[in-house]
């Protein structure tokens, strides 16, 4: 009987750890490398390490991520439908002009939508194998092919359940969900005000015994997983990366944001909790000009 409780709990914990690492490898490791904040003296080492992670996780290869992300920082494209992240949101059905509540409902439908997962996986695998407009080089493609071959061999001749439980669910599916949670709460997409905000986890302390009971449950089963999978590394302070550029320390993000906020030079606002961040971002899409879609 106790196994019915402990085994799912351990698997849940394992998934949180694995998905957190996958997301960190993109939003901090790869991100810092393309912004030249990491491996400044050894670009080759940095490329090897970032490509190692993107290969084993089948996330976007370095060159494709570099193109997409630097365009995201280009003020001519940031938060417009030319921004690849916003373009993806529109393709997934997040239309400017929709009501905020409609957009939020659509977000939750997307999490389990086969169309959403298909689009995300198609994009990830296209990048890994140099398909379409991908700029991925031949060696990176070979590495991806080798890794895929290893996974298929493992599934076919060693253990299919092991590959499904140990790789497909966390790496291919849950990582998609974490990615959607991230970029659909990140900015006021489509809004002329080009807003970003700090995304913080938690809520006010309760004042009743029942309130405390739910507060502790949320801490363990909601907020810690959110912090690790939705906002790994310095993502909670991502607004400061846009506002302050190179003045922001990505490896000590929390304290760097606080110090920069103290200067009063930057417009930094904040949201607490996932729902607040989602509402703010979806409100931006709702108010965006519907002709931009």
């Amino acid at each position, binding site marked *: 009987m106790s196994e019915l409780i402990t085994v799912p709990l351990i*698997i849940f914990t394992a998934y949180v750890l694995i998905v957190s690492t996958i997301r960190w490898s993109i939003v901090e490791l790869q991100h810092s490398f393309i912004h030249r904040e990491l491996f400044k003296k050894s670009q080759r080492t940095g490329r090897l390490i970032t490509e190692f992670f993107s290969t084993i996780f089948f996330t976007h290869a370095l060159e494709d991520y570099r193109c997409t992300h630097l365009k995201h920082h280009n003020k001519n494209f940031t938060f417009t439908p030319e921004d690849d992240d916003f373009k993806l949101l529109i393709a997934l059905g997040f239309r400017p002009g929709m009501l905020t509540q409609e957009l939020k409902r659509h977000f939750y439908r997307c999490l389990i939508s086969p169309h959403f997962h298909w689009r995300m996986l198609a994009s990830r695998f296209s990048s890994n194998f140099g398909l379409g407009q991908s700029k991925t080089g031949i060696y990176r493609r070979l590495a991806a092919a080798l890794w895929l071959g290893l996974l298929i061999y493992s599934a076919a001749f060693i253990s299919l359940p*092991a590959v499904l439980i140990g790789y497909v669910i966390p790496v291919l599916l849950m990582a998609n969900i974490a990615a959607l949670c991230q970029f659909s709460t990140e900015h006021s997409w489509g809004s002329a005000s080009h807003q970003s905000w*700090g995304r913080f*986890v938690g809520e006010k302390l309760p004042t009743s015994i029942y309130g405390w009971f739910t507060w502790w449950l949320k801490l363990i089963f909601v907020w810690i997983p959110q912090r690790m999978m939705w906002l790994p590394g310095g993502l909670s302070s991502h607004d400061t990366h846009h506002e302050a550029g190179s003045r922001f320390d990505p*490896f000590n993000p929390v*304290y760097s944001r*606080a110090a920069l906020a103290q200067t009063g030079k930057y417009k930094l606002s904040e949201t607490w909790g996932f729902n607040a961040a989602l509402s703010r971002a979806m409100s931006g899409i709702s108010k965006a000009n519907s002709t931009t879609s």
Partner: protein
Amino acid sequence: MKNGNNNVKAYTDIREMYKNYFPAFLQPFLTWLTGKPFAGQQPLIIMRAETRILLNLVQLELGMGLLFVTVGV
């Protein structure tokens, strides 16, 4: 909890509320969790990129290890 200050309604800033309610040894964890330090808080350690890479590798191995031990993957 510490300070005997149970008037949680007095605080509008969540992080300051946590700072005044929970003991000092929990504050670094709460800063990590919330993503925000309390006013005047200084980091325990200054992180380097290499440290963060190592921590995440350990995190990945821990996750894979838990799966291996639990379901044999």
